[in-house]
């Protein structure tokens, strides 16, 4: 079955900016046009349509997104293939700017497949080629041509191996060999570990050999010591049991010992005999009786007498007497309290006295003034007499003064009259007497009598004035005395009260002093009685303690035997415990020793086990390394055999194709040879020219080289079994003339049994000159390729 290319539709794919459709008939199809018009893009479109990828993408020369024409959001390619006898397969592939990809396949039956992996698988099965095989057999690009023509021998060999499809074998072989070496290294590492563990095993085995024979002796010794421990534990149990029984008695012993010490300490020394205490008690009782008598406490007097007559034990009597003593003490204290009240009263009166005296002192200036006034009054009385006589004298003097005044008036009138008469006599010579009517001719002068009256009057006036002042003074004094009278009365009362208070205070002080003396004495007697009674009471208690002490001593004497037994048992118990402990330690040591032996054995066992594992692993690794080397060797052998077979087959096809496509006879023969150099297979392409075999690169022109290499690639096409009925050649022989080119394309078509050969060329004239060839001319137009 031959698969033929019928149609290619491109839209925004690589150099094509718009939608273009190319139809392909059988025969030679030449895609011609200048550089950059989309010739190679058209061939890439075929590969993309069939396989969903391109040579450049697979070689990472550009990404899939670079397949989309600049300025477009997506690219679309549709390829129609014809399967002879079956029909047309139409595949549409679309790739988006965001990386989305779609593939739709319409098979001849009209069935549609949309899953990419299914589409790819169907097309791969249809052509019998995968993409790598497609690229090295059907779509022969310039990379292979130029690499084989001008590459180094090593590079050329790699390309030829790649074209033969066997380069993977070398990789696999190398990889497996590397892993085999890695496994060998592991074997070495395991062997080293094995050696180390063997050494450890040996060492442990020696150790085990020295200690293991002693194990029986140690086990026997261990058993004997365990028996001893068991026996001692049994005895310890018995001792512990007895100790437990004795424990209460011993505890009592300890307790009584402590109590005895306490009692001894409390007693201090031996107490006085009871008889002596009875005598002392009687003395105290009588002294208390006296006190009761002194304090006039009849009731208690009787009680004390009753106690004296009582037949009770001394302790009881002491108790009762102490009770009476306490009561008397209470009364004593109450009376003392009363005494205190007297003292308080005395103090209160002293305070009143103090206030009185303060008031008296305040009144003192008034009193002095009063006394002074009294003295003044006395002095006035002494000097002028009493007030009555002063008044009488004053009245007399006033009367006398009035009389003098009248006499003075009379004399004054007489004088005036004489003066007037004298004057008239002088004027008239005679004058009638106003009194007697007689004629008077002269007047005697008597002026002196008038002047004497005046002097008396002044003396009287002075005396009256003085007496009046005295009276006035007396009145003033009397008024003031009356004014001070109240204060004087108050003062006198205060003075009297002060005297009374002083007397009362003296009386109280006397009472208090006497009472204090009395109660002080009674208090000291009561205190002495109390001390004596306390002493007797204490002595009685000590007598009691002494008795208890004797009882304790007796009990301790009884317990001493048990205590000694207990002590002995304790010692035995301690010794047993120590012995058991010592034996336990020895047993532990022996057990450790046995454990150590067991550990050595276990360790030895673990090491032997580990050794076994490692030996097993080592053997496995050894086997694995051998296996890997065999696989690597097998792959190398397969590669060699396949290479030789393919080289033979390729050489046969090469000769045939070269004869068909090369019109001249200067190249007599051609062959592909392979030889091993330094572990690598190096291919050489040789030609026979002038009867001699030489490397094709040394003898041929550039054009001849291209033709030979093209023949070689076509030979690979023929060697590989597939269903492709077309061949795609991208500018295969740029440096040869038109005749050769025509011969090449026709020869390829014929020798390879192809019905379609599609090739690209920039030489449009050559393309046009090819007889019978379909020519697709691509031209530049608005930045896009076009037909």
């Amino acid at each position, binding site marked *: 079955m031959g698969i033929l290319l019928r149609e290619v539709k491109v839209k925004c794919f690589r150099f094509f900016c718009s939608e273009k459709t190319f139809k392909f008939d059988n025969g030679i199809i030449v895609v011609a046009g200048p550089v950059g018009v989309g010739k190679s893009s058209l061939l890439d479109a075929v590969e993309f349509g069939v*396989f*969903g*990828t391109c040579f450049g993408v*697979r070689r990472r020369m550009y990404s899939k997104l670079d397949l989309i024409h600049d300025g477009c959001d997506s690219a679309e390619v549709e390829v129609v293939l014809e399967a002879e006898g079956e029909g047309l397969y139409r595949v549409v592939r679309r790739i988006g700017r965001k990386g989305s990809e779609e593939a739709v396949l319409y098979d001849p039956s009209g069935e549609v497949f949309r899953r*990419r*992996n299914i589409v*790819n*698988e169907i097309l*791969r099965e249809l052509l*019998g*080629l*995968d*993409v*790598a*095989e497609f690229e090295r057999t059907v779509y022969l690009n310039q990379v292979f041509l130029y690499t084989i023509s001008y590459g180094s021998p090593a590079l050329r060999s790699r390309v030829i191996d790649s074209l*033969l*499809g*066997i380069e*993977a*074998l070398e*990789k*696999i072989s190398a*990889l*497996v060999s590397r*892993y085999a070496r*890695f*496994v060998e290294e*592991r074997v070495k590492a395991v062997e080293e570990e094995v050696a180390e563990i063997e050494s450890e095993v040996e060492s442990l085995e020696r150790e085990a050999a020295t200690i293991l024979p002693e194990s029986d002796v140690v086990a026997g010794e261990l058993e004997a010591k365990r028996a001893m421990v068991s026996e001692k534990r049994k005895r310890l149990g018995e001792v512990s049991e007895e100790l437990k029984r004795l424990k209460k008695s011993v505890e009592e012993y300890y307790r009584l010992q402590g109590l005895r010490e306490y009692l001894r300490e409390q007693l201090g020394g031996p107490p006085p005999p009871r008889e002596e205490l009875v005598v002392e008690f009687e003395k105290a009782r009588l002294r208390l009786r006296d006190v009761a008598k002194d304090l006039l406490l009849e009731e208690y007097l009787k009680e004390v007498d009753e106690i004296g007559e009582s037949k009770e034990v001394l302790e009881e009597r002491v108790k009762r007497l102490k009770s009476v003593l306490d009561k008397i003490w209470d009364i004593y204290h109450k009376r003392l309290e009363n005494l205190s009240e007297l003292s308080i009263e005395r103090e209160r009166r002293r305070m009143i006295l103090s206030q009185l005296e303060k008031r008296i002192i305040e009144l003192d200036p008034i009193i002095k003034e009063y006394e002074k006034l009294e003295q003044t009054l006395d002095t006035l009385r002494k000097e002028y007499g009493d007030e009555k006589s002063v008044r009488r004298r004053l009245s007399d003097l006033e009367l006398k003064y009035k009389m003098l005044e009248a006499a003075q008036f009379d004399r004054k009138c007489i004088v005036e009259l004489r003066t007037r008469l004298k004057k008239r006599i002088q004027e008239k010579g005679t004058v009638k007497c106003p009194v007697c009517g007689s004629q008077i001719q002269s007047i005697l002068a008597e002026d002196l009598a008038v002047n004497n009256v005046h002097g008396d009057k002044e003396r009287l006036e002075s005396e009256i004035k003085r007496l009046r002042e005295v009276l006035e003074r007396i009145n003033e004094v009397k008024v003031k005395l009356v004014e001070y009278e109240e204060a004087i009365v108050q003062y006198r009362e205060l003075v009297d009260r002060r005297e009374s208070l002083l007397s009362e205070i003296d009386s109280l002080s006397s009472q208090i002093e006497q009472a204090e003396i009395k109660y002080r004495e009674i208090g000291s007697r009561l205190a002495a009685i109390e001390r004596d009674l306390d002493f007797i009471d204490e002595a009685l208690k000590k007598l009691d303690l002494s008795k208890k002490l004797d009882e304790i001593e007796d009990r301790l004497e009884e317990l001493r035997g048990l205590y000694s037994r207990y002590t002995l048992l304790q010692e035995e118990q301690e010794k047993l415990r120590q012995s058991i402990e010592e034996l336990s330690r020895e047993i532990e040591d022996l057990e450790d020793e046995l454990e150590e032996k067991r550990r050595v054995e276990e360790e030895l066992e673990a090491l032997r086990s580990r050794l076994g594992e490692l030996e097993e692993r080592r*053997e*496995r690794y050894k*086997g*694995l390394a*051998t*296996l*890997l080397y*065999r*696989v690597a*060797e*097998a*792959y190398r*052998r*397969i590669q060699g*055999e*396949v290479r030789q077979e393919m080289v033979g087959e390729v050489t046969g096809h090469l000769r045939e194709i070269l004869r068909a496509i090369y019109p001249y006879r200067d190249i007599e023969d051609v062959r592909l040879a392979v030889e091993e150099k330094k572990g690598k297979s190096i291919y050489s392409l040789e030609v026979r020219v002038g009867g001699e075999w030489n490397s094709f690169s040394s003898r041929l022109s550039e054009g001849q080289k291209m033709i030979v290499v093209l023949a070689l690639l076509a030979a690979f096409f023929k060697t*590989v*079994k*597939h269903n492709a009925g077309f061949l795609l050649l991208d500018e295969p022989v740029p440096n040869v003339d038109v005749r050769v080119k025509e011969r090449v394309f026709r020869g390829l078509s014929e020798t390879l049994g192809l019905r379609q050969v599609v090739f690209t060329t920039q030489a449009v004239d050559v393309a046009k000159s090819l007889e019978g060839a379909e020519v697709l001319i691509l031209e530049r137009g608005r930045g896009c390729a076009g037909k």
Partner: protein
Amino acid sequence: MSEEERFLGKSVENTLRSKIHEICDGECRKLALEILEAYVYRGERGVKEVLERVIEGGSSGDTAEGSEG
């Protein structure tokens, strides 16, 4: 599976399979085929995975004793 995940042409694979059957047997054949299968679909990475698994004892490779090449 897409063609991009295939590392060896089908015709070469078939040739190699027949060669492996021809020159290997037992464990060697088994491992060689396993390696080939791994290479076809996962390339060298697949071969490494197979070999590492075999070394760690996870495949028929761990019973390499007595295998004949």
